[in-house]
């Protein structure tokens, strides 16, 4: 079935941008905040532009002002800091994927970053953009939530930190106020004896996720599960879904295949995919989630066991 026209998927000119706007290139974060305080409601922030410009071409988004964040040197970095990791909002997926530090110590972020888009898209798209766009199919947010990431949000009234899980309010909706800017993502380094895994299923290797799963398993010295995170994304609800029911089933137990299977079923029962979803039917998504969550947990468990 062809997508409905109102979605803007067909009969749309994608050769030019019809929307005209005033363009700004601030060089500091405080310049952005000052601008947003004045014009926040009429402003769109652009980083990689791989989502925003498509939306503008399709007429889904119109904006009077466009503020480019990519010329702010203080917004792009990957820093190890006090037992954790700080990633600047305009750090590209390519930079994350190619960071030796992330590959070695935060393989979950590496796997999620690598799964996103194509080389060209990863060269352009940023971690902040992927988060702030708040598409339920985004790849990096489930991985970040599985690592208990926090968002650093700066506004006129100062800065605040928010667990990333609470950042998402719905499809394309976040808790960001019109005068606020996401500047950084903070990830704690996973505790000892932790294993993680990110799995994604999509129509083609570079497509948005039909379903994605990020999990973390942390083991006690006796091998029982101390802490677990089970996060499912890819359009299984208005936002990603962290299955606390699944996590509770795992915590305190010795993880065996039968328990993991039961957990995956529990996680699948918490999903609420839309019947109008373009990429797959709700039935398909729920069936696939059982398999993907199970595989991800098995993989994470194996990895946790090899950690000392």
């Amino acid at each position, binding site marked *: 079935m062809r997508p409905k026209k109102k979605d803007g998927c067909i009969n749309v*000119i994608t050769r*030019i941008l019809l929307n005209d706007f*005033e*363009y700004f*290139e601030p060089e500091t974060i405080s310049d952005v905040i000052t601008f947003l305080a004045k014009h926040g409601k009429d402003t769109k922030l652009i980083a990689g*532009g791989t989502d925003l410009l498509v939306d503008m071409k399709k007429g889904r988004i119109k904006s009077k002002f466009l503020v*480019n964040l990519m010329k702010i040197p203080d917004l792009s970095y990957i820093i190890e800091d006090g037992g954790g990791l700080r990633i600047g909002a305009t750090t590209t997926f390519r930079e994350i994927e190619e960071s030796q530090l992330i590959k070695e110590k935060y393989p979950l972020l590496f796997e999620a970053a690598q799964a996103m*888009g194509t080389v060209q898209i990863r*060269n*352009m798209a940023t971690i902040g953009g992927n988060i702030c766009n708040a598409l339920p199919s985004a790849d990096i947010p489930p991985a970040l939530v599985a690592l208990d990431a926090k968002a650093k949000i700066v506004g006129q009234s100062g800065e605040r930190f928010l667990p990333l899980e609470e950042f998402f309010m719905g499809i394309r909706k976040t808790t960001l106020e019109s005068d606020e800017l996401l500047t950084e993502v903070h990830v704690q380094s996973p505790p000892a004896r932790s294993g993680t895994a990110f799995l994604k299923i999509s129509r083609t290797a570079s497509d948005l996720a039909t379903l994605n799963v990020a999990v973390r398993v942390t083991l006690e010295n006796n091998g029982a599960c101390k802490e677990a995170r089970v996060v499912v994304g890819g359009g299984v609800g208005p936002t990603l879904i962290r299955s606390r029911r699944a996590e509770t089933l795992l915590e305190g137990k010795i993880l065996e295949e039968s328990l993991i299977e039961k957990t995956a079923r529990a996680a699948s029962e918490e999903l609420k995919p839309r019947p109008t979803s373009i990429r797959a039917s709700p039935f398909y998504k729920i069936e696939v989630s059982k398999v993907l969550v199970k595989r991800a947990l098995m993989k994470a468990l194996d990895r946790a066991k090899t950690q000392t």
Partner: protein
Amino acid sequence: MKKKLIEFTINGNPRKLYVKTNELLLNVIREDLGLTGTKYGCGTGECGACTVLIDGGPVLSCLTLAVTVNKKKVTTIEGVGTDENPHPLQQTFVETGAIQCGFCTPGMILSAKALLDKNPNPTEEEIKRAIEGNLCRCTGYVKIIEAVKLAAEHIGRGKITSGKVLEAQKEGRVH
């Protein structure tokens, strides 16, 4: 309509140009600079036909605002090799039959070039990853991957002469 002055390097030549703030890099390259090697395919970041290199990395010119390339280095297919002295990739693409209709070729070559510039000895998997963002509806990709492999070999030897493909076929390194 607001215009802004940008200074950038296109294929090694510095240029100053007034562009509209909502103008896409692809259109500036094709219409203002007359470099039509870069193609408009889908316009939404799916196909990679509009791929150019900015500071050496492949990006999509149909999703890049022209104003944002201020002070950057842009390379299009016109900046890769010459008629007399083609880039090894261009030669191996021709010789292996990695070109059919040719529409994806400029983007494909630029993606492959970005790979080889960084990693002169890529595995087949790395080649596939490097060109994942470039759709080709003719070749089925097999010949393109062969062409990139061969170009890497030639670059490694520091020289390329035509007929190398036949030689490689005889030795059973490509089919």
